[in-house]
């Protein structure tokens, strides 16, 4: 049986080990149910294809709506998957163990968020150009939409995690989470969808994209700590 060195001056429990533990475990869980990944994607596809169904399918209108719909659908996919980010760990006691682990908690939390993005955000980014074709978007517009999603969806996951931690164990979690987090999502949505609009209007999208990038940096630095604090509050 193994014993851990507890008297080392430098803690052997580094952020990298924590990250690896969380990402590996959550990816394994996500892959365990083979259907999961496919289902996430199908949900995105269905939502994106729903819109032309409900509105009238005129061509110019479609191209106008395109980036907005791709973004709103990404946002909804994120919202829909967020309540699950910590809920099952909370219910079965894993979150207690995470909070009490010798590893730094923000790193563990960041690992969970990263895994969440890899399983829900990244596939959306990959799929977006294909779906965009369906809306008659041209190549420059497609490129910018995809790029904006690539920078934007991690922000959604990071911000969403804060909301998910704050609504743990609160009834009506799903919609309360949505309410808390949507105001934070809206700027992301505006810059994200705006980037493509700028390109279609013949302008440069770089301003929008660098604003998104700044947002990502901010969320990356702040969100893990805020989320860790939220979880500790929920456990009290």
């Amino acid at each position: 049986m193994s014993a851990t060195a507890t008297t080392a001056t430098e803690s052997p429990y580094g952020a990298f080990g924590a990250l690896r533990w969380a990402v590996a475990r959550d990816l394994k869980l996500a892959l365990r149910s083979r259907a999961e990944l496919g289902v996430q994607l199908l949900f995105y596809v269905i939502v994106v294809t729903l819109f032309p169904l409900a509105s009238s399918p005129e061509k110019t209108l479609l191209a106008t709506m395109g980036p907005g719909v791709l973004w709103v659908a990404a946002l909804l996919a994120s919202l829909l998957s967020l309540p699950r980010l910590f809920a099952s760990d909370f219910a079965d006691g894993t979150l207690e163990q995470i909070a009490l682990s010798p590893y730094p908690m923000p790193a563990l939390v960041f690992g969970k968020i990263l895994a969440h993005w890899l399983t829900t955000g990244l596939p959306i980014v990959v799929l977006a150009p294909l779906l965009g074709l369906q809306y008659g978007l041209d190549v420059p517009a497609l490129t910018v939409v995809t790029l904006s999603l690539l920078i934007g969806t991690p922000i959604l996951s990071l911000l969403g995690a804060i909301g998910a931690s704050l609504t743990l164990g609160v009834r009506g979690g799903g919609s309360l989470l949505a309410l808390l987090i949507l105001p934070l999502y809206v700027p992301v949505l505006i810059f994200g969808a705006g980037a493509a609009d700028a390109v279609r209007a013949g302008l440069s999208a770089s301003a929008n994209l660098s604003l998104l990038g700044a947002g990502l940096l901010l969320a990356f630095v702040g969100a893990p700590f805020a989320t860790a604090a939220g979880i500790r509050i929920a456990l009290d």
Partner: protein
Amino acid sequence: MSLYRYSSPAAFYPLAGMMAPWFAGAALLCTVAGLWIGFGIAPTDFQQGEAYRIIFIHVPSAWMSMFVYLVMGFWSVLALSFNTRLSAMMAQALAPTGAIMTFVALWTGALWGRPTWGTYWAWDARMTSELILLFLYFGVMALRSAIDDPRRADRACAVLTIVGSVNIPIIYFSVQWWNTLHQGASVSLTAAPKMASIMLLGMLVMSFAAWFYAIAVVLWRVQAIILERERGAAWVAELPKLRSAVA
């Protein structure tokens, strides 16, 4: 009484193995004949030119996509009400074939739409409901793979299949209920056909090909499912074929 015997997987397994090759052979024959009629004999359409020949694949697959679902629904009802394992396995075996047929109907329809309507896709009622059918097939398959207890999966999928079967009349009658791009039924048992009889013949032969193909594939797939699910059972261990394969 003798039919009842075959409701046990152990009894059905050899029967399926015996029948499947015959259906596969018939499917091959009909495909060759149908394609020969469709692409060799049938005349060029004066309106659509050669593009119309997609009909020989499109219509049979579209019919099968709906029919397979109905058959799936039938087995699901049996599985739920009598709790018979074989019925559930049949339903499970049908889903992928149904999905493929639906996909082919959508694909060929889209290819056909380009020359005739100038677009691959429109949110027309029939196309939409056919797309929904594809998602229903996906849903049933996804639900099955999300539940790892096969008995539970059987019954859950049966409920979903039965509920989803309301979509079939919607697809079929969509051309009548809504003013759609897609054309209405041109083959009917009651009215005289509006099509050249050689085209009709080609379509019918191709339909038989699709039928036989579906039956053969489903029988083989059900054999695989039986083997997988009953791998613990004594009769599986005694299968001579399996033993020789191991040796």
